[in-house]
């Protein structure tokens, strides 16, 4: 007879694993990847490929030569980080900058803390912010989207993002209404489907929401977190729109431009850097929503979701301490049926 295994209960497992979760996220990103390919062509593929390959390489090299521990590049987390970094970059960015960003993302933001599960800040956002500060010109040059089969224009046409355009105009003394109807401003429909200037993964709201729905269905993320971000941003920006529509953009404009939806669905929901309980996640989400709108309305950057998420990441351990799950037995005093 075989040797019997002795181990503590439970003796069964639901067979889910870290890599299954990671590849579920990759699957969820496919609609947004397709959208970015549709609007930005082969440049988007180049950026994504470079980001993923350099992320994997950096993780492998750190584990092999520095940590000298087990190699875990198969777990899929570096692939997810790589794609997310690419999602936050403009299509025209030079490849070597992507490599530098990926190295900071994996090397500094992830492996320094001990690798997967131990990093306090979202690695892809650390990589992105590093690039934004280091390469401010290239990071804000947005190729104009050209749907794949549309007539080709000359190469290297760039334009501002909707948020950037709006902010520039209003800062220069134009009224909000004029800016919203400026000729370069994408229409509502274009904003929803993604035909506008912006980072690879952020332009198409519908593609991101599809991926988000898939992740909620697969129980990889909780819907409460993205919803609390979007709702807060909607209400907070809506409040100022009501107060002074001549200066502030309407809330739907804020929702559908920039990286708000991408950040809410794919970046803030990163398991490692977000709180553990639903209550905590909602607090975290409300914080992100408020900070994003604050930066957008009064900061010097047109976009604020990356900073907002990173700032709230720093609060995650505190939120975890303050918002514990409801312990069984705390409902005792409620009158119950009998």
């Amino acid at each position: 007879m075989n040797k019997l295994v002795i181990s503590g209960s439970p003796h069964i497992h639901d067979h889910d694993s870290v890599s299954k979760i990671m590849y579920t996220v990759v699957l969820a990103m496919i609609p947004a990847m397709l959208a970015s390919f549709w609007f930005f062509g082969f440049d988007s593929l180049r950026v994504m490929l470079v980001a993923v390959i350099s992320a994997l390489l950096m993780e492998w090299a750190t584990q092999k030569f520095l940590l000298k521990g087990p190699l875990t590049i198969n777990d899929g987390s570096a692939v997810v980080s790589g794609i997310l970094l690419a999602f936050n970059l403009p299509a025209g960015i030079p490849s070597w900058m992507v490599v530098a960003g990926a190295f900071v993302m994996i090397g500094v933001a992830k492996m320094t803390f001990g690798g997967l599960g131990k990093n306090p800040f979202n690695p892809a956002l650390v990589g992105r912010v590093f690039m934004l500060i280091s390469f401010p010109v290239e990071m804000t040059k947005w190729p104009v989207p050209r749907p794949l089969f549309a007539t080709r224009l000359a190469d290297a046409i760039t334009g501002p993002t909707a948020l950037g355009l709006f902010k520039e105009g209003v800062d220069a003394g134009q009224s909000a209404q004029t800016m919203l109807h400026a000729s370069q401003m994408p229409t509502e429909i274009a904003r929803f489907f993604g035909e506008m200037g912006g980072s690879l993964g952020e332009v198409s709201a519908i593609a991101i929401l599809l991926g988000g729905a898939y992740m909620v269905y697969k129980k990889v993320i909780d819907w409460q977190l993205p919803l609390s971000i979007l709702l807060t941003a909607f209400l907070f920006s809506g409040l100022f729109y009501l107060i002074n529509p001549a200066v502030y953009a309407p809330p739907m404009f804020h929702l559908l431009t920039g990286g708000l939806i991408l950040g809410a669905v794919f970046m803030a929901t990163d398991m490692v850097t977000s709180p553990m309980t639903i209550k905590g996640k909602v607090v975290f989400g409300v914080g992100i929503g408020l900070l994003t709108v604050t930066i957008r309305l009064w900061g010097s950057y047109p976009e604020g979701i990356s900073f907002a998420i990173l700032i709230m990441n720093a609060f995650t351990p505190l939120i975890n301490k303050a918002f514990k799950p409801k312990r069984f037995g705390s409902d005792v005093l409620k009158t119950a049926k009998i």
Partner: protein
Amino acid sequence: MMKLATFRIGGVHPPENKLSANEPIIRLPLPKQLVIPLSQNLGAAPKPVVKKGDEVKKGQLIARGEAFISANLHAPASGKIAKIDDAVDSSGYRRMAIFLDVTDDEWMEGIDSTDELIHQNLPSSEVIRERIKEAGIVGMGGAAFPTHVKMMIPEEKKAEVLLINGVECEPYLTSDHRLMLEKTQEIILGIRILMKAIDVKRALIGVENNKPDAINRLQQFCNADNGIEVHALKVKYPQGGEKQLIKALLGREVPSGKLPIEVGCVVSNVGTAFAVYEAVQKNRPLIERVVTVTGKKLTKPSNFLVRIGTPMSALIEAAGGMPVDTGKIVNGGPMMGKALPTTDIPITKGSSGVLLVDQSESRRSTPNTCIRCARCVTVCPMGLEPYLLARISKLSLVERAEKERIMDCIECGSCQYTCPSALPLLDYIRLGKQRTASYLRNRK
């Protein structure tokens, strides 16, 4: 359809795998020798009242529970005491046991050996409690807490309702299910007896909705006159946990560290109710129980009526023999059962099943790192943070563990079942509970 009741926080739904649900209970033939461990109940082991060479009759007292929390033991068959010696029991340790060489199967005098149902003449509550104690009845759901102790309601407390656990939320196990189908009237009578013993007018039976036949069958004997109701519950593990069942049936939460009587409940298993009927109306002590023998590779997953002290190997043999690639033998269900080192282990009062796990499923996967996905927090039915408790336990921070309510953990295993990193969360938490318990004892 009405929304089915269940407990509020946490829970998982593992594949049910109730392979033996349609197998009627079969009486297993008596083996030549029975090995009866003394310690079969929670609390102190009873003291032997027989010695080597004594002739005993089936049903005769062989060990008396003298401590406050203890339970009597009776001879499961007639025969001669071969020796009183140590033997490996389901705990995995060598402990004292009575070895009985079986000669025949004749009940001792004064015991009703017929199958006739005795409806009439429920004795007074004092007599009921005395007979339950005499018969050595313990909770048949697994914890094996002596039933007569549970029936003693503290002076200042009042029982309002009796809850009967027919949930059987562990995957694979079907012994309670079959008992509810085949001994329905006996169970109902047992419930009436228990109601009388603790002086309540109402009893609720909780059964998960994956056993509609059992629910229907019980329903036939429940009415306003006897005050017994059957409630179908949503299938969710660990609904059979005492606190979860109370929450599901009554919406009440037992406070941390307290017993069900705190919220006016006494909870008993359907198997216990059956044993109580047998003890009170038939004068039969607890000497046998229904045991599910199951496993995906087993030829005939079955439900056997087994005499206490029968080796598990005899059950496995009767169910078609041990499959060649068995990698693990579990006493109980897959979520809370114990892995055993051998099959030469006797069935005791608390054994509800023997599960043979295939080699491919026996080993855990290699643990990964915690990715803080919070699934353990989501599924914990006690509202705890298993990832945190495991870490605190690893560091032996007993005071912190107490504050994070580690002692509330019911060891259901939902956290470890669902952990995508395959972390041995419950292993650490068990260790932490032991350390915290000894710290709390020393502090007093």
